[in-house]
């Protein structure tokens, strides 16, 4: 590159020598340089301006194309983006043993508002109050016109209410899915099913959580989405449950009882075919749990069959007799001294009536002699009695599959003395639930095997540990049959179904100690048919009074037994049992020909 000198010295020097003014040459040179520089700058700027022009052309084109793409896409309904994990709302159904629905799910909606999207907040709030009169209009208007972005209005609304809200036509009022738990049979089997409530909630779904009963016990199974479409099959029979509830309710009213419970159990499988506790509730609208400081057993939520532990009275006598027979201490014909009262220290044990000086073991059960049973208990001894009752399940809560089972913990004396053994033998001093009693009677009824009660449908019989010999069990069954035919439960006879059982009338303990004179727990523990027992039925009435006679009668023979008999007459056909045609008694055969 040839450098161009800044000053044109080649021209200046000769001019200077000639004595001319060089200023003009310098200026001319400067002007030329300036023009050249401007030309260079312009040619460079030309390129860069072209780049800028291209940039703007492209940028505006991109904006235009993007605008065109947006304008030609079909607008979609704006959806609130669902953040986080989706709540599984597919709780499995619960059915009875024949597949009839006990609990299922039902699609409803929740209602909420997004105030920034409300077109007319005040008018919408007024319309909402017309649909839901329980809403507070002023508060709603305040919420809608304030700074809030999200307002819950209702957690569950019916389809009719949804339509009414929809008709308001405000885009700021929105619905979310709410799968609710529905118990289509209402109060039926309320205590078994328990109930469910909403757990974790979001706009589109809410989690259902079991709060009691099998809903709580099997919450994990029911809530597992893998089990959707695979219902939980219970052992309950819906028809039997319904019949049992009707009969028990009627019996409770007739006998003026404040509560009642019944348990029907298959003696071979341990399946609970029906379990009733009254008063009951509607699991669709589960009442609030009782507040503290208030006796929980008064609440309809209280499951008397499982949670209620009572002194069950004379129904226990058969256990002492069965054990004594199992141990070979007595036979049904052994005669026991029943002179009373039986004194033990400062305590006295006496009978309800005077039954004579001595009786056979069979008669002791039939007549329900406290003294006789206490004597047998003395023979057995406290230790062995305790072990035997333990084997029958009386010392632990029942293993039944409802959430409340653990609270049905039996009450027993800390020091299992000989006196305790004597009172426990006739049902005082040990408190257990009716379900405990049903399970223990099932062991007698099935020939001596313990069966644990279960609410789940079983495929075959259980063979639990043997608790007594088959012979002792068979003899006990015969004695219990005698109670109905010739003893205190004579009203329990149901023609054709050979009811066997034992009554029990226990005075209720006062909370402050001692026993009430006029408040009893009347129990009838029965099995049928006696020739080959298939079912155990325990009926317990709380504070029954039978007033049809001249004096109030409270004993189980007058209260619990007729209710149980009515129940057996109703449910035995439903269970598929056929009445046994018993031959007429020979003594009643009259020869009319002579």
């Amino acid at each position, binding site marked *: 590159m040839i450098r161009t000198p800044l000053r044109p010295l080649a021209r200046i020097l000769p001019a200077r020598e000639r004595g001319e003014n060089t200023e003009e040459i310098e200026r001319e040179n*400067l002007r030329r*340089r*300036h*023009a050249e*520089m*401007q030309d260079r*700058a*312009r040619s*460079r*700027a*030309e390129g*860069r*301006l*072209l780049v*800028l*022009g291209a940039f*703007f*052309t492209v*940028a*505006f*084109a*991109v*904006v*235009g194309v*993007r*605008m*065109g793409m*947006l*304008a*030609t*896409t*079909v*607008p979609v309904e*704006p*959806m*609130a*983006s669902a953040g986080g994990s989706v709540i599984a709302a597919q709780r499995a159904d619960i059915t009875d043993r024949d597949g009839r629905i006990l609990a299922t799910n039902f699609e409803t909606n929740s209602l909420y508002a*997004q105030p*920034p*999207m409300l077109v007319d907040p005040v008018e919408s709030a007024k319309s909402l109050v017309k649909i839901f009169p329980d809403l507070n209009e002023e508060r709603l208007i305040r919420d809608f016109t304030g700074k809030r*972005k999200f307002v819950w209005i209702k957690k569950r609304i019916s389809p009719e209410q949804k339509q009414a809200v929809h008709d308001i036509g405000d885009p700021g009022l929105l619905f979310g899915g709410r799968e609710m738990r529905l118990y289509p049979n209402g109060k039926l089997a309320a205590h078994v099913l328990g109930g469910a409530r909403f757990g974790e909630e979001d706009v589109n779904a809410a989690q259902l959580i079991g709060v009691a009963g099998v809903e709580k016990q099997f919450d994990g199974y029911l809530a597992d989405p893998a089990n959707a479409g695979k219902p939980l099959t219970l052992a309950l029979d819906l028809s039997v449950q319904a019949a049992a509830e009707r009969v028990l309710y009627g019996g409770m009213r007739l006998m003026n009882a404040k509560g009642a419970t019944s348990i029907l159990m298959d003696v071979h499988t341990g399946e609970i075919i029906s379990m009733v506790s009254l008063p009951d509730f509607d699991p669709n609208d589960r009442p609030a749990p009782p507040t503290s400081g208030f006796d929980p057993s008064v609440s309809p939520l209280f499951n008397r069959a499982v949670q209620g532990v009572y002194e069950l009275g004379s129904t226990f006598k058969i256990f002492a007799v069965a054990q004594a027979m199992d141990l070979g201490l007595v036979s049904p014909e052994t005669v026991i001294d029943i002179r009373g009262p039986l004194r033990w220290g400062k305590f006295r044990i006496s009978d309800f009536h005077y039954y004579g000086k001595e009786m056979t073991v069979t008669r002791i059960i039939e007549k329900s002699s406290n003294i006789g049973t206490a004597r047998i208990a003395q023979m057995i001894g406290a230790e062995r009695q305790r072990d035997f009752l333990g084997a029958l399940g009386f010392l632990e809560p029942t293993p039944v599959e409802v959430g409340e089972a653990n609270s049905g913990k039996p009450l027993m004396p800390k020091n299992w003395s000989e006196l305790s053994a004597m009172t426990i033998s006739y049902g005082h001093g040990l408190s257990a639930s009716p379900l405990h009693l049903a399970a223990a009677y099932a062991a007698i009824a099935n020939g001596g095997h313990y069966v644990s009660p279960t609410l789940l449908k079983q495929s075959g019989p259980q063979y639990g540990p043997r608790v007594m010999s088959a012979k002792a069990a068979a003899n006990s069954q015969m004695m219990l049959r005698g109670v109905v035919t010739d003893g205190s439960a004579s009203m329990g006879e149901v023609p054709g179904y050979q009811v066997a059982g034992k009554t029990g009338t226990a005075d209720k303990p006062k909370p402050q100690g001692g026993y009430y004179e006029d408040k009893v727990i009347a129990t009838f523990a029965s099995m049928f048919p006696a020739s080959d027992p298939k079912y155990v039925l325990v009926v317990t009435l709380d504070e029954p009074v039978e007033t049809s006679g001249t004096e109030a009668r409270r004993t189980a023979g007058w209260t619990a037994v007729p209710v149980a008999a009515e129940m057996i007459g109703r449910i035995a056909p439903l269970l598929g049992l056929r009445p046994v045609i018993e031959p007429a008694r020979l003594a009643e055969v009259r020869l009319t020909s002579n």
Partner: protein
Amino acid sequence: MVYGAVPDRGGEPILPKWWRTVDKWSMVCVLLLFAIGLLLGLASSPPLAARNDFAPFHYVQRQAAFGGMAIVAMLLTSMMSPIMVRRLAILGFLGAFVALAMLPFLGTDFGKGAVRWYSLGFASFQPSEFLKPGFMVVAAWLLAASQEINGPPGKTWSFALCVAIVLMLAFQPDFGQASLVLFGWGVMYFVAGAPMLLLVLMAGLVVLGGTFAYSTSEHFARRIDGFLTPDVDPTTQLGYATDAIMGGGLFGVGVGEGQVKWSLPDAHTDFIVAVAAEEYGLVLVLVIIALYASVTVRSLLRLMRERDPFIRLAGTGLACTFGVQAMINMGVAVRLLPAKGMTLPFVSYGGSSLIAGGIAVGMLLAFTRSRPQGEIADLLRGRNR
């Protein structure tokens, strides 16, 4: 005076000369934009008027009044000679600069979280709008002077001035105007012959500055975050704008049928293009884009021929800020760019912005007028152009 001599008229009369030399296409485009602004004002401002208890077309009337003033300002300015424009612009710049500096003491924020305005009772006045074109001219003057032999260090001075203004604007905060000023200076420096290495460095600095603003200013960070999330929240301004553009389709939902203007608080300013898209459809939006593009690109192409470095630089700065402001505004509405409050020149409502826009475009038209560019000399030197 010599008898019979024709009196010297001092050259050609002003109006014919103006009409002969002015860029008529660009001027028509600007007038069309103003007309579209009025048309969209009819659609977009009644909700605002309803909110502020005015007659439905209160804001349209104001827009028309300010627009008339803006057009007069534009025409007058475009008739001036570049030297005249430069002198007045420098005076205006000085005034606006002082006004901007006094804002923190005398200004008001109208409850919008940024002190940008002087309240004059009947109208408000935003000095930064007037400062912008003034600064372009001053910076172009300094940059051009620095190219003269034995000229002043104009690049340094103009850069210092630019930084001062950007800092003052960022302090308000008004990052939109600040970035426009910075962009304008950068474009002028680029055309004035910035070394490539420096350009790369500058790009890096812009990125750094953006990061700094993001991490220190909550106002700024929220908008960037909103842009970066992939889903449009339908309850944000952007969500409404996107909805409106989709709803409008090719030919719009019909005049006066649009809904977005009722939901968007900035429907008459920052998101007016959404109103246009909803009511008049893609067609009008494409027309608007074409108008801005033709003003910008035509001006840049005309400036390519310009020999005078000052005119070239000032014109470039004015044309580019005009174009980029429109581009950013529309880019935000279609979610190409993060949300940034920037008005659409001549179309959006706003008195200061209209008049200042009129002056700026007037200056641009004055700079892009056809002038003798030494074509003979070029021919003589063998450049056939």
